[in-house]
């Protein structure tokens, strides 16, 4: 798993994160979702989605996410997510 992660490009990870959110969001305007959209705004993802999303991030990273240490601000956007979970991997 971790080898896959290491070879994954930044753009590929960003695309996977974005696609996951667009697929799961109940928000009306899916097309308006960008790398800057605030993910924890009401209506973008439910609390159930967040559980699945964290598991998805773990699968992309190939390593667990320590939920005790997550600052909610990390979920501000794709940009902050990438910086928090993927910049140390490669």
């Amino acid at each position, binding site marked *: 798993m971790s080898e896959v992660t290491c070879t994954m490009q930044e753009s590929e990870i960003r695309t996977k994160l974005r696609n996951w959110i667009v697929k799961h969001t109940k928000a009306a305007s899916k097309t308006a979702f960008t790398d800057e959209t605030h993910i*924890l*705004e*009401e*209506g973008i*993802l*439910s*609390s*159930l*989605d*967040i*559980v*699945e999303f*964290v598991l998805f991030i773990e699968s992309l990273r190939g390593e*667990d996410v320590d*939920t*005790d240490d*997550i*600052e*909610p*601000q990390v*979920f501000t956007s794709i940009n902050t997510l990438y910086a928090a979970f993927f910049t140390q991997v490669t």
Partner: protein
Amino acid sequence: MPQERRSLRTGFLRSAEQHPERPALQLDATVLSYRALRERAAALAQTLSAHAPAGEPQLTAVFAHRSITAYAGVLAGLLRGHGYVPLNPGFPTDRTRGMLVRSECRSVIVDAHGARQLDEVLAGVGTPLLLLLPEHDDVSELAALWPQHRFLGARDLVDAGTWVAGPVDVNAIAYLLFTSGSTGQPKGVMVAHRNAVPYIDAMVERYAVTEHDRFSQTFDLTFDLSVHDMFVAWERGACLCAPTSGQKMFPGKYITDCGITMWFSVPSTAVLMNRLKMLKPGKYPQLRFSLFCGEALPIEIVQKWADAAPQSVVENLYGPTELTIACTLYRWNAQTSPAQSEYGVVPIGEPYPGMKLLVADEQQNEVAVGEAGELLMTGPQLTLGYYNDPQRTAAAFVTPPGRSEVYYRTGDRVRRPAAGEPLVYLGRVDNQIKIQGYRVELGEVEAILRQEAGVDVAIAVGWPVTASGADGIVGFLGAEHADAAAIRERVIARLPPYMHPSELRLVSEFPLNANGKVDRKALLALLARQTEAVE
């Protein structure tokens, strides 16, 4: 102050006098003292009252979500001597408009969340309204768009210094709360001050609440358990810690960062925390009490929670809005509780002080101890019924044969296994269905599904639906990857043939209703849509 004169706001006002500089409300990095919150609420109340529409009902709507305006708005309604009507910017606007119109409210307090939806909500409202948007400097654009309504903004706020407490009728509505009705039309439950005050008294005493406590606030204002958060905290000068949308997604960090001592949520929140590995042993030593309410509480989750919060007493609360927040409770005991639980669900225990219960058959006659029946209750928390709906009120608030008091029919099936044993919850009356003529308790099927699949949540529904009940059962398991065929085989081995699920479906997530509970109707609708698609 004598007991009969107290209303829902009394405790807050007393705390504001005794502890003016202590924190009353924390919202993200903002902390409001009791003095500041009281001043804000009084300013909103005074401003509305100065422009009050003639002949308005004694109700003020609050269209807001987790903002200072939301909490100050609730208090402002009460300071006016009104009941408050919470409206939720997270709900579909049609639903919000329906609640607003049926409440007959003429005064509405709106925060920034509510303001974004105001155009949609106001479309089709004929009655002239008074709308106060204290977070808006300029309301001239709205005023031009909606000439029939009057808008007030931040610049219109009057000085609160002149506010004095007027009389409150303890029999009047303290809050009007719309709950989902089986017909799809929400019903407005009228909760009087004299219903809420005994509840709050029972809670502050049982939990020995002090001004040093810090309360969670996981419930939306449209969910009546939020009344507990606000008014049990404020009764004793404690601080209410409202989570941001981010904190709500990561409850573990919210508990730690806010120093929560009094936790209250639906069991589903604990289930999510468990999946996110937030229930590690010893993680939350500062929690004094952990309360769960709103749906069945699985014992495995309580055991995990109790390990994570080793200093905390864990209690299971039960109660419909019609009986004021909660009306029975049960204290978890790691040694004795597992044996007292049925279907793997924690008992709901005993009535609140002064409340009386009746476990009855379909004719409302008491059943023998050990037998299952519908739970009926009466006492000081029995509410006034449904707003402008005498027909539905009469159907649910009944005088059973041989009794003199009015009881509320909860629609919930319960059983007292033996004298002295705690009451156990069996499910909704309508969760007991007839399958090919056999009476089936869906909760029993769900318990076995949970055990055999090793999942926290399993739902069984009767499907396909027939005139007399259902032809069979479809089970839904909260697991993305599992061997459904193998689980079904183990389940079948433990159940009589008429209770066998014809099919098990794996779902990565369950649809939730507006209050965060699993939405059974949505699961049935899913099955119906798929059947149509095939035919």
